[in-house]
């Protein structure tokens, strides 16, 4: 460790520069991370509930139902103004993206049919096409609803006071293109807009169901950046309190901030979006990183004080001479300028943040934002001024006094790292293992979270062991005042002194007694702990959405849906009267279950058909005995109904049936109780060839909860095992392993007990919070044991050793725990959203318990039992190589595991293969051409540009080098652009402008920007990499007599979409030679942006079958601007030299 740290100090500048470069690079990669809540990533796909849910969604299109209820303030719903609203809302919803049109249900929906008997048989007609104009027509509508009981309590309440519109919303798919924007918020905002237009004093309109809740989820998740900033401030303040120095405030924050950027960068590189589970991970990394940095810094102060008890004034004087900005007016000016810069440079992210804040309608927070910017401005000024002072400090000739101080400073850095480095590595390793162990979860998002957190903490370790010593050695050492303030006795010291007195004094047993009491209470709490997830219980019941949901549940059958899937073994299995009768009985049975308000199924419609065919005789409201009769009824229905009427209830082959259950509760406990009874009932009633399964959003939650709780227990055991093992190996004693896990297990126990006592249930967010707490909490015991062994090994008297350890390492542990708890405590400010509050309480408790146990129970046990590994242990040096060897192995394993577990969207091979052929069909070795670009604007005015261009394929056969020299018009003549493509990273672009006489490197990430003012983007010119898009073969058709594949391509993620500016491309690809002949391109909002046509293809390389279009036309339909590129002359494969693709060539006139 000593030679390592001396190496770092010898190359401190390169280390700082390298870390800075890495940070800048990774920040750029992680900068565009987007938040995407994809329900598919948070479900355990192997769970039977999920399999059924996915099947129901695939076959019946059902998963998340939005419920819109209308209650008139006077009278029943049979009033024209109410029905007009129903009709308008229904019609508008039909046009809303991602609303499943065929499953839309309301009085005015197409599939709401009145089935009635006539003398000729059965008549089926839409319940309401126009709003009934007369009281008679209105009464007829009421009668029709009463006749068709399937709709009672589903679209109209039993008391006719409320009517609802049920809109099924499917989640986003990769092929959606324009519809994916904003996850559920995208759809919900549209629904809200439709509904808000109908709200008035005459009616009470309520909106509920899963989509608005998921939308609200997304909105609350957007608070994380603000919370992170607040956490930063709180942690900084706690550091200030702990150290009372600027360095103590800033330095421990540098590490985690850098580590957060690194971890985000790795996520960006792995193309993994932020989601609901890993949104708060940056705060976690911040907390852990700050913790380690505090330990390091604390130890540094200790070592420096030891080496230099009376800091020489030489360095202080030199430091003071550097001078800061003294003038207050200038300081204020700086702050204003920096604030303005923050606004300008980070305008885009701010806009998003502001939008999120304003949606909370909380002007107080807006004011807070203003203050925050001022603070940021001030901090930026301080940093700038500080850096400037440092530069001047470094470049000043150093006096002998300064040199001596500098030497001691570096010595203190070396000594502190040698002593605390191995411990930190070990503690970090434990946390990394803890998080990477989450990779066992069956839920993609949790695996990603585990990976991200593990990698983040690894980053923390790397930065701690490189940047911090390098920076610390470059900074001036503490002066007298600074050292004195840091050592000043305050609350922390008094607390640790009290602990030390108790441990080594006569009252030690009190610690064990108190621990016993706490454990007993915790066990009692645990006995009351249940497992339950209910999405709606994550939110404050006073929120308007919750109140509307309560009203709807009170007035109607329920806003939560469960699907019972009846699966036959062959087509027409559902037409079997035995199956239909079983369904009918099951339907009646389910309605008797608690919280269930209604069930809709095909059976009820068949019963109604039978009744209508028998003169509306109530005795015939039953399933016919013969399958042939049922088939006849369905045929008759189809003659006057519409083919899609039963799409929600039965599949096309009549092999699968879906029973839609409306429930008042979204609790997984209620749903599981119902399912248990249904299973038993179904087993008795259904023929053996029929399978009955359950699915839907509540079932999905139940599955997630079950898996998480199961895995959680495993996870706790796993982390405890890992911690035990590592500690036992490092200390070469199993007792050490037991001692280290003691605080950890106590914190888990207290956390679980607290949950039980508070009446909270073990649900998804709480389970994850516990995982976080365990991951963070193991550090303290390790730091304490190491330090204890070090002091005893030095020969310090036992009691004095305990005092010293508690007053040094123990105090640092207290700082760390306070900072972590403080960082998370800010989440309590997040009103209305309980998971943030739970985080604040549970992490705070976990920190309190684990640090208290590590500072009291564990040392008390050590003092009592005097284990050999402490009292006869050797020096610590042997642990560092072991830890250093294990960390990379764990990291590599974790990364491999994580990458293997990343979501890999499925794609059809054939369209991809076509697009890959299309991608390379114009990749010929080289070309030289003269081109004419004609740009025509909306008014028909033309601009003509003539260019000379060369291109050459690079060694990998994919990337081109392209040089374009402008020959005309005069204005741009002599301008040369050089584009070097890189598949695996950003392209390089240079431009030579004759006016500046310089070659300038350009930023190349904006592929959507116009290529030299044409309607082609840079992305169009380079080509869109097929693997970054999802492709669907939609049809085959002829263009100009040539058969073509029509391939629809949508970006695989928002980054690609944002980079290209396209949400969808439709290409007509000529079948025989795979060239694009026509294309339609859609912008990010899904609107048609461009039409393109490529013609006059000529062979560019006959051997490899490569072709070049000699006429390229595109038209921006939004701006009505068009570009035509005509290749006037071209030669290919003639051996173009590399000289063209150099900046040297560009500069030649």
């Amino acid at each position: 460790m000593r030679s390592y740290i001396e190496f770092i100090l010898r190359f401190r500048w390169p280390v700082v520069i390298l870390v800075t470069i890495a940070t800048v690079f990774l920040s750029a990669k992680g900068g565009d991370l987007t938040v995407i809540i994809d329900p598919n990533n948070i479900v355990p796909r192997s769970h039977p509930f999920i399999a059924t849910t996915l099947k129901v969604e695939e076959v019946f299109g059902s998963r998340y139902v939005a419920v819109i209820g209308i209650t008139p303030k006077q009278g029943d719903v049979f009033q024209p103004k109410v029905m007009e609203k129903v009709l308008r809302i229904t019609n508008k919803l039909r046009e809303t993206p991602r609303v499943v049109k065929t499953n839309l249900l309301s009085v005015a929906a197409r599939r709401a049919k009145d089935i009635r008997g006539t003398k000729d048989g059965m008549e089926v007609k839409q319940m309401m096409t126009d709003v009934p104009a007369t009281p008679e027509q209105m009464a007829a509508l009421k009668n029709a609803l009463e006749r068709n009981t399937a709709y009672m309590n589903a679209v109209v309440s039993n008391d006719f006071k409320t009517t609802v519109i049920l809109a099924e919303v499917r989640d986003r798919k990769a092929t959606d293109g324009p519809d994916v924007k904003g996850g559920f918020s995208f759809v919900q905002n549209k629904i809200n807009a439709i509904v808000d237009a109908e709200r008035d004093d005459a009616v009470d309109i309520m909106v509920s169901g899963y989509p608005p809740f998921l939308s609200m989820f997304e909105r609350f998740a957007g608070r994380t950046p603000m919370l992170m900033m607040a956490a930063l401030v709180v942690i900084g303040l706690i550091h200030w309190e702990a150290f009372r120095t600027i360095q103590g405030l800033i330095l421990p924050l540098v590490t985690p901030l850098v580590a957060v950027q690194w971890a985000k960068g790795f996520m960006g590189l792995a193309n993994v979006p932020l989601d609901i589970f890993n949104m708060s991970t940056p705060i976690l990394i911040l907390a852990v990183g700050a913790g380690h940095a505090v330990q390091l810094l604390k130890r540094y102060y200790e070592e420096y004080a030891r080496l230099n008890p009376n800091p020489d004034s030489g360095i202080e004087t030199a430091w003071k001479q550097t001078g800061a900005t003294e003038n207050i007016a200038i300081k204020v000016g700086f702050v204003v300028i920096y604030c303005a810069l923050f606004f300008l440079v980070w305008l885009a992210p701010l806009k998003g943040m502001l939008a999120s804040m304003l949606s909370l309608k909380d002007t107080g927070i807006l004011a807070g934002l203003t203050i925050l910017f001022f603070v940021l401005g001030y901090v930026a000024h301080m940093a700038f001024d500080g850096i400037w002072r440092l530069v001047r400090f470094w470049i000043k000739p150093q006096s002998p006094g300064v040199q001596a101080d500098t030497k001691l400073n570096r010595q203190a850095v070396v000594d502190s790292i040698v002593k605390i480095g191995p411990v930190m590595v070990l503690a970090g390793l434990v946390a990394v293992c803890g998080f990477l162990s989450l990779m066992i979860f069956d839920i993609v998002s949790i695996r990603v979270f585990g990976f991200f957190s593990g990698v983040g903490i690894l980053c923390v370790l790397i930065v701690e062991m490189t940047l911090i010593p390098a920076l610390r050695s470059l900074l001036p050492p503490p002066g007298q005042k600074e050292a004195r303030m840091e050592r000043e006795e305050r609350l922390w010291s008094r607390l640790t002194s009290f602990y030390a007195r108790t441990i080594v004094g006569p009252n030690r047993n009190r610690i064990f007694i108190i621990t016993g009491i706490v454990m007993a209470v915790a066990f009692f709490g645990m006995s009351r702990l249940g497992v339950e997830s209910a999405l709606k219980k994550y939110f404050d019941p006073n929120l308007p959405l919750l109140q509307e949901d309560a009203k709807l549940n009170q007035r109607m059958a329920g806003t939560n849906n469960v699907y019972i899937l009846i699966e036959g073994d062959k087509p027409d299995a559902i037409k079997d009267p035995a199956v239909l009768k079983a369904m009918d009985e099951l339907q009646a049975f389910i309605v008797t279950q608690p919280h269930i308000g209604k069930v809709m199924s095909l059976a009820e419609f068949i019963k109604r058909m039978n009744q209508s065919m028998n003169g509306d005789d109530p005795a015939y409201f039953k399933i016919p005995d013969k399958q042939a009769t049922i088939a006849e009824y369905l045929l008759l229905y189809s003659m006057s109904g519409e083919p899609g009427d039963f799409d929600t209830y039965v599949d096309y082959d009549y092999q699968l049936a879906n029973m839609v259950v409306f429930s008042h509760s979204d609790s997984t406990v209620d749903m599981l109780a119902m399912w248990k009874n249904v299973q038993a009932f179904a087993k008795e009633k259904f023929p053996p060839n029929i399978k009955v399964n359950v699915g839907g959003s509540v079932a999905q939650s139940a599955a997630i909860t079950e898996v998480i709780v199961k895995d959680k227990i495993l996870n706790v055991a796993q982390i405890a095992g890992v911690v035990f093992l590592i500690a036992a190996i490092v200390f070469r004693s199993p007792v050490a392993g037991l001692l280290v896990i003691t605080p950890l297990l106590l914190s888990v126990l207290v956390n679980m007990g607290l949950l039980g006592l508070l009446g909270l249930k073990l649900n998804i967010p709480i389970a994850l919070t516990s995982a976080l707490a365990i991951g963070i909490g193991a550090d303290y015991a390790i730091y304490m044991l190491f330090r204890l062994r070090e002091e005893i090994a030095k020969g310090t008297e036992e009691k004095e050793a305990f005092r010293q350890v508690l007053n040094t390492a123990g105090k640092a542990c207290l700082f760390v725990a306070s900072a972590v708890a403080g960082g998370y405590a800010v989440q309590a400010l997040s009103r209305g959203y309980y998971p943030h509050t739970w985080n604040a309480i549970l992490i705070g408790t976990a920190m309190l318990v684990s640090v208290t146990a590590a500072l009291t129970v564990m040392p008390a046990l050590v003092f009592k039992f005097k284990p050999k590994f402490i009292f006869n242990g050797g020096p610590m040096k042997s642990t560092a190589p072991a830890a250093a060897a294990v960390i990379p192995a764990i990291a590599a394993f974790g990364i491999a595991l994580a990458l293997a577990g990343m979501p890999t969207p499925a794609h059809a091979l054939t369209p991809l293969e076509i697009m890959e052929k299309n991608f390379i069909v114009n990749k010929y070795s080289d070309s030289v051409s003269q081109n004419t670009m004609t740009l025509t604007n909306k008014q028909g005015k033309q601009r003509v540009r003539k260019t000379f261009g060369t291109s050459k394929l690079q060694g990998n056969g994919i990337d081109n080098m392209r040089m374009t020299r402008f020959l005309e018009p005069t204005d741009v003549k002599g301008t040369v652009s050089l584009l070097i493509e890189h598949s695996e990273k950003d392209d390089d672009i240079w431009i030579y402008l004759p006016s500046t006489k310089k070659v300038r490197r350009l930023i190349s990430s904006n592929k959507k920007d116009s290529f030299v003012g044409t309607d082609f983007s840079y992305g169009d010119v380079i080509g869109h990499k097929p693997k970054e898009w999802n492709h669907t073969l939609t049809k085959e058709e002829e263009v100009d007599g040539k058969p073509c594949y029509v391939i629809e391509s949508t970006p695989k993620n928002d980054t690609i979409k944002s980079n290209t500016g396209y949400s969808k491309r439709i290409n007509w690809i000529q079948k025989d030679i795979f060239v694009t002949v026509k294309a339609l391109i859609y912008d990010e909002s899904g609107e048609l942006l461009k039409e393109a046509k490529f013609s006059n293809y000529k062979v560019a390389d006959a051997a490899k079958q490569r072709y070049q279009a000699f006429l390229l036309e595109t038209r921006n339909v939004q701006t009505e601007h068009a570009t035509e590129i005509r290749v006037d002359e071209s030669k290919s494969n003639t051996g173009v030299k590399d000289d063209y693709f150099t900046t040297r060539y560009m500069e030649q006139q």
Partner: protein
Amino acid sequence: MGPFPTRRLARALCLTTLICATQASSFAAPAAGDDDEAPLAPPESGAAGAKEQPGLRMAMTQAGITGSLRAGYWTSDRRLDDETNIGVASAWLKLDKKLGSDVGLFAEGYLVSEDVFGDRLHESRLREGYVEGRKGNFDYRVGKQIIAWGRADRLNPTDNLTPRDTTLLAADVDEDRFGSLAAKASWNFDAATSLTGIWIPKFQPTVIAFRARTGVVYQENIPDSRQQWALKLDQSGKAVDWSVSWFDGFDLNGDISQGPLTAAGQVVTLDHHRIRVLGADAATTSGSYRFALEGAYVRTDDPDGTNAFIKNPFFYGVFGVERDYPDNFTVIVQAFAREVSHYSNPELIADPVTRAIAVQEAVVTNQYDRTQQGLSLRIDKKWFNETLEAEFAAIALLNRQGYLLRPRVVYLWSDSVKIIAAYDYFKGTDKTIYGLQEKNTALYSEVRWYF
């Protein structure tokens, strides 16, 4: 600057025409056929499409001559005087001619009348006129030429070789540059790395204006020495573009000092002392960002800082970050700093006249403070297929009140007509360079017709 037209420009244009005529017969064969390196070389300058053009135009195009006629209106000139409401007309001519596959001729000059309604000021200048060529790895350029160094945005500590005419009423940012007679040779080690040597046998200073003061006579002394040379090792085309350079020559901007007291008044001289500049720059991109760093250490003829009328040695550094947003929107933020060695406060000079001139020298040369810090900002946005461009540029000093704001709008009416409107706003205390230039604050617009 002589009266219009000057003999020098006439001579240049005659030479240009002569060379074109000669070339028309000697080098008539298109380069494409001769070039064994490029299977299809770029057509003769402007030859593309020439066939469709009318007679005179076609002849000019074939001769490689292009140019523009410009008309503009300025609310103030750039000479720190009280002239306002100025009509400007100018003609710019450019010759760009290939003389063979590896040899080319380039010349550019202008005739400008800065007072179309009167006869106050007319001038002309041959901005550049050189022959350039290449042979294998060797490139050369001989003649009057502009040499622009530096990778930072518009603030270039290493850019000390060729001058500007800061009084010229040119609407584009770099049009005030003009060349010096120089010989430049480069050896290209590979596709990206080159070593360039430059010899500048004739020194030409930057044209700057002095504010007229009663009782003060300005006198510029231009050194007559052929000893100016520069070296640059440059890499461009890999992940990071960078260069390291050395320049040994004369200071383009000069130093003012106290001359004799004559009957006409106190003489203030402008002398161009020798400077030696060690410079370096680097630029790279990552994602949506471009980073540029440029710095130079300038050693002057007053290495110990004992002469108040010669600049002290100083370091000048610039660091910039450019962020590229979608849809042609760019923001560039740069921080710059100058640190003066052996600084002494000119205000402490006892003699009032000497002090006044020393203060003036320190302010003009940015050496009034030991340390000068500042920020620059440039925001650029293009619309409508790059036909409309708006730019906002600003430079502000952080340690003193002084700044420059330059909003600018350019609209390309058609391929041959461009309209520019801009505003230069200088503000600051009289201890800053921006404060001294307040009189140059001007709103201006210009229409150009390219041919």
